[in-house]
């Protein structure tokens, strides 16, 4: 073993030690520290470890759906007998990726798994593209999200464009054809698989306010839509330059939405068709399943195994996670940007979600760095749809009053609104006010906070054990 090998071994060993120490000392999940330690000892640790993955790695990026898509892929691969390293606790910056690799490698730097699944923050893609040399890249979607951190959406897509075009390597790019901004990145690449929903009946006729890509990227003309699914997702074409939604190679036909109970659709692929049913609710999760299926087909998993794995999949923490409390059910829903928030609201209000009585909502909005420090996006959500359709709404978090003002101007009666900035107390109030289920809509750190509160009460497990 040469000097470089010794350094690599030291990096992996130190990283693994850091992970186990941080867990034992209860410093949290230990999801990023090991990566920082390992990289300090060997800066090329990512490319060295990634190169040892026999089946290569999958990178999943985009604004919404990264975690669920990556977990679906992990679940499908595990069922197909392909063990994978995965930054599953949602640490999706570079350090989290190193940590996941280090944890699944032997001390000499040989991975003990065949594949890698990496959820990558949309702005981090250019940094990890070259060292990971992914076999499959999944581009989920692009929405306005954390503009204080990412700058403009166009900027994110142009960074993807540059990174993916520079050295596409062997990468197959699996991308969302229904998102015009994402499709414009994917359609020009040499190896590409567009996915999308091929069922105009589940779309609306008009764009919602949260649509972000209304104007043709190439010529500035407004797109025309034959169907709008949500946000700016849909069947679009530009009347001037003729750019249109690419025909999806992996598609969902005959989609049946069943509210929070789940979704059924026909999964159509080059390898055949199969009807699937998933507990994952909402149209946005149809995209996630399509993305995961397309990626796993690329890795050689048979359609039948993919479909079976999708059917038994249970969601990640806080993605429609269910908790039982005092004989009642609470559903935790991550809601961190307008398009996602709207989809969660539509799912909660779906006739098949509501069973007797009006639902009680707990909405907690934080403005820490991981949430986005700017809460302007609350005004881009269509919370007007709640008026007259919910019972009590308890509002919490660091930006509780901003959310309360938003709901007030959306026409919610003052009597149904409660502000309780303390999250534990807000949880108590919501549970006490509910006849039926409680729906908790939370930004990212508020979700972590609520799960910690529930974990201490023995209602959920720690997110890193998930």
């Amino acid at each position, binding site marked *: 073993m040469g000097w470089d090998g010794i350094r690599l071994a030291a990096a992996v060993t130190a990283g693994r030690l850091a992970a186990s120490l941080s867990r034992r000392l209860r410093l949290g999940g230990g999801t990023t520290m090991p990566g920082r330690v390992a990289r300090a000892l060997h800066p090329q640790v990512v490319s060295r470890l990634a190169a040892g993955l026999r089946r290569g790695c999958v990178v999943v990026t985009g604004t919404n759906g990264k975690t669920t898509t990556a977990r679906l892929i992990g679940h499908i691969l595990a069922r197909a007998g392909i063990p994978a390293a995965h930054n599953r606790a949602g640490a999706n910056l570079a350090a989290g990726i190193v940590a996941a690799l280090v944890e699944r490698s032997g001390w000499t730097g040989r991975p003990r798994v065949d594949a890698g699944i990496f959820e990558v923050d949309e702005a981090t893609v250019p940094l990890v593209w070259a060292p990971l040399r992914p076999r499959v890249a999944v581009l989920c979607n692009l929405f306005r999200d954390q*503009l204080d951190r990412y700058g403009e959406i*166009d900027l994110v897509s142009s960074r993807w464009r540059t990174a993916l075009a520079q050295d596409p390597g062997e990468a197959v790019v699996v991308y969302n054809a229904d998102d015009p901004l994402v499709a414009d990145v994917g359609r020009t690449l040499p190896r590409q698989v567009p996915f999308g929903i091929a069922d105009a009946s589940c779309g609306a006729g008009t764009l919602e306010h949260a649509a972000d890509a209304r104007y043709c990227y190439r010529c*500035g003309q407004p797109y025309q839509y034959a169907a709008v699914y949500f946000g700016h997702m849909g069947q679009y074409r530009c009347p001037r330059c003729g750019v249109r939604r690419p025909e999806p190679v992996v598609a969902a036909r005959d989609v049946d939405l069943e509210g929070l109970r789940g979704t059924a659709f026909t999964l159509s692929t080059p390898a055949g068709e199969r009807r699937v049913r998933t507990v994952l609710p909402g149209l946005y999760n149809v995209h996630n399943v399509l993305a995961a299926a397309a990626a796993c087909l690329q890795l050689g998993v048979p359609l039948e195994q993919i479909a079976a794995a999708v059917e038994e999949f249970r969601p990640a923490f806080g993605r429609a996670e269910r908790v039982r409390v005092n004989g009642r059910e609470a559903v935790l829903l991550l809601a961190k940007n307008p398009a996602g928030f709207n989809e969660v609201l539509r799912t909660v209000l779906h006739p098949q979600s509501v069973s007797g009585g009006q639902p009680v909502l707990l909405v907690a909005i934080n403005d820490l760095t991981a949430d986005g*420090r700017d809460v*302007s996006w609350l*005004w881009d959500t269509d919370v007007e749809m709640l008026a007259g359709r919910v019972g009590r709404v308890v509002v919490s978090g660091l930006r509780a*009053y901003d959310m309360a003002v938003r709901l*007030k*101007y959306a026409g919610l009666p003052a009597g149904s609104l409660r*502000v309780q900035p303390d999250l534990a107390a807000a949880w108590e109030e919501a549970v006490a006010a509910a006849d039926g289920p409680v729906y908790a809509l939370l930004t990212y750190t508020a979700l972590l906070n609520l799960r910690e509160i529930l974990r201490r009460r023995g209602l959920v497990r720690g997110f890193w054990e998930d």
Partner: protein
Amino acid sequence: MDLRICHLYPDLLNLYGDRGNLTVLVTRARWRGIVVAVDAVGIGDPLPVGRHDLYLIGGGEDRQQRLAAADLTTRKADALREAAGRGAVVLAICGGYQLLGHSYRPAAGEELVGVGLLDVVTVHPGPQARRLIGNVVVRCPLLGGAALVGFENHGGRTYLGPGAAPLGRVVVGSGNNGEDGTEGAVSGHVYGTYLHGPLLPRNPAFADHLLAAALRVRHGDVSLAPLTDDLEAAAHAAGVARATGTRP
């Protein structure tokens, strides 16, 4: 009593919850029994001269702003100048603010010519320059020195000429350019500011200042009935506390 609002480029300049400002103006007027009509006026649409009491323009990304700028200066500038001349209210946020000035030089590409309703020029120091991002608190002379609270996120630096007064003095944040302590610009009843999105939801006193000024155009001096603003006041106080690092 009635109020006619014109929302310019609602689907193009709407980056940071800009419709929150419209929602608040409309709702606060209606709560007082004022009949409100809103016209959405986009690219290619004519802007009728003399019709509206209040004009709103939001912010957008560079690409959207470029699309809007061409339309604004060729099709709508005359009607906007006429509006400012008769005392109608114009509120422009972020990108819209930059377009109301003389010019905007973006990070890349050609300089955009503005409408010139505000005596300001904006220069983007280039893609590598730090964006001015964060919570903002300013003291606003129009409100007797009371605070306006909001969030800013802009690359362009705006400089005031002698014909424009600042909307406020920066207490926390960067303001127009991060150098001279000014935020926004006012000339008559034309207002420009970088405090984006939910500026009016958190600053109901400023919303009412704009409503009263807009109603004055056709209805003379009116006194606005007070509203129950407890949630708005709490959001304002929490915003100031969050920005200044104190507890509310």
